[in-house]
């Protein structure tokens, strides 16, 4: 994806007007489902950064969704904050907690890290359930307001959906920029070969913490939008299983590919709704679909496309290799140089 950076931007910008106008004909249920897809895509985008790009196995994204949702619910219902302010505060809080949770990631990797983040998720869930004075406990927080922005009420399904769409676009653009920047390159290096990355001066500690914190901030941002979308929250949607589903979402969609989270979230959050008509069987169908996806393409659905592209570029590379074997000698064509001094470039 770094090879062809602008394709992602183009798809993103082209999808926006389509998604702006297309669901206008949907009733509130359809809009709710599409809105939920956007919100969960944001959370999955964050996890995709942590897991897909930086290679850190986290089972805490559901907890950050919860942290964001509760922070927003508390700030808007109890403290009377407007949603935009609560949104920034929730994302910032998640970022800060993400930095703290990142410290264990400096010490342990893979399944150990999965375990540490799992414990964190359980603790967050229990705090949300037990500390009734703050979170409403098992009774949750009801009547979470939808926003009024610049004097216009965005409470109805369609305007609120469009607001979500705008926020999603902004966050996706930010992610796109981040991944294209030297940071994105460093995250990738962190995932593929931390040993080599360190030898190139890449501060593993700083980038690990950042990958965790930014991924968590996206989780918090998603939670902050989830709360006014559902207008009621209780601890159940942020239990451990939510983190597992998000992990599944990212991998099935294609970990490490830009649009993977959107595709994965479609499967995890929209497909079940589409399959509602099948009664009790939809979870079976969903699980079977995921199983088939990972078995056919272990790198996720979008990984399939990546692989196809790689295959093509490798064919090209082989041709290029055959055209010129590396000899460092003079016979290799093209603009070459025998000096590294500036200005010595041909």
């Amino acid at each position, binding site marked *: 994806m770094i090879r062809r950076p602008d394709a992602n931007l183009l798809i993103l910008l082209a999808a926006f007007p389509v998604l702006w106008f297309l669901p206008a004909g949907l009733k509130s249920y359809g809009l709710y489902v599409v809105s939920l897809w956007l919100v969960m895509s944001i959370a999955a985008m964050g996890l995709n950064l942590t897991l897909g790009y930086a290679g850190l196995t986290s089972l805490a994204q559901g907890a950050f969704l919860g942290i964001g949702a509760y922070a927003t619910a508390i700030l808007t219902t109890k403290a009377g904050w407007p949603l935009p302010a609560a949104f920034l505060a929730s994302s910032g809080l998640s970022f800060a907690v993400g930095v703290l949770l990142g410290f264990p990631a400096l010490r342990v990797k893979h399944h150990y890290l999965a375990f540490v983040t799992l414990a964190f998720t359980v603790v967050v869930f229990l705090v949300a359930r*037990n500390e009734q004075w703050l979170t409403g406990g098992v009774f949750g927080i009801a009547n979470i307001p939808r926003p009024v922005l610049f004097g216009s009420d965005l409470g109805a399904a369609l305007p609120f959906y469009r607001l979500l769409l705008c926020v999603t676009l902004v966050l996706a653009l930010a992610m796109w920029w981040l991944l294209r920047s030297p940071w994105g390159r460093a995250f990738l290096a962190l995932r593929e070969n931390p*040993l080599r990355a360190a030898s190139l001066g890449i501060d593993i500690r700083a980038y690990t913490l950042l990958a965790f914190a930014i991924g968590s901030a996206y989780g918090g941002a998603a939670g902050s939008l989830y709360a006014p979308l559902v207008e009621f929250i209780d601890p159940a949607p942020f239990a451990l299983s939510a983190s597992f589903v998000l992990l*599944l979402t990212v991998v099935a969609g294609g970990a490490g590919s830009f649009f993977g989270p959107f595709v994965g979230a479609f499967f995890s959050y929209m497909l079940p709704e589409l399959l509602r008509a099948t009664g009790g069987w939809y979870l079976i169908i969903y699980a079977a679909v995921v199983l088939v996806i990972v078995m056919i393409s272990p790198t996720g659905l979008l990984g399939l496309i990546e692989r196809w592209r790689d295959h093509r570029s490798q064919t090209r590379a082989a041709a290029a290799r055959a055209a010129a074997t590396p000899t460092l000698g003079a016979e290799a064509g093209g603009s070459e140089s025998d000096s590294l001094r500036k200005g010595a470039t041909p």
Partner: protein
Amino acid sequence: MDQFLQLIVAGLATGAIYALAAIGFTLVWQTSQTINFAQGEFVMLPAILVLVGTHAGLPVWAAFAVASIAFVLLFGFGFKRFLVEPMQRHGVLPLAIATMALSVLVKEAAKNGFSAEAQPFPSLVPDGMLSLWGAALSARDLAIVVVAVVAIVGLQLFITRTRTGRTMQATAQNPTVARILGIPVERMILLTFLINAVLALVASYLVSPVYLAKFSNGESIGLAAFIAAIVGGFNQIRGALAGGFLIGLIDNLTAAYVSSAYRTAVPLVVLVVVILVKPEGLLGRKEERTV
């Protein structure tokens, strides 16, 4: 003191179940790098299969026999042959995700195909109390501990005393070297999957009379097995054993003496601290820092 002893026995009984699941989990991880997130469902399913048999009119002993054979075939042999084998070369994460999907699949199939509700399960041990050192202890808890310990000791004897067992252990410790030494690695890997299925079977028949047979029973057991395996170092049968008993004990003691509301978190937090201080696990082998 009376209460403490009761709690210890109850904790050991819970822990024995976790240990059975965790040992299988560890074996399968060692030989094939499979993180089996469906391990809990493996413990849930045999009991359901038995009930399917009895509901179909089979006598209890026949239901047990049919369910046991079917389960070991499907989730010992079939699991390895049709899920793990094709996916193994793609690395740990895709396979782990596949087992996650499998876990949902098994759970939902048990729910839709059998029942959404818990069902009573025939007990192999009668209820009752035994008086020991002045404390009234549950006979069933003691029986669970005894059966589990017998199973584990049996496994240990198999591994250390028989040729096949030693070969299997060599495979588990280093499949690459084993392959070079001409050990039939694939067969040994299959053996670990079969052992895993049998251990799950034993755990299932032990817990279901108390927990009741239900499609969702695997959730907590699977998680506990995962945690026990990690705490034990992920690569040690003894570690998994210790981890399982430890979690059962901490869980019960927490519920009684610390906080019921934070019961599930306390063992986790304790163990996270252990992991952070000693990243290679309780009985794991230490590796040199590489970054």
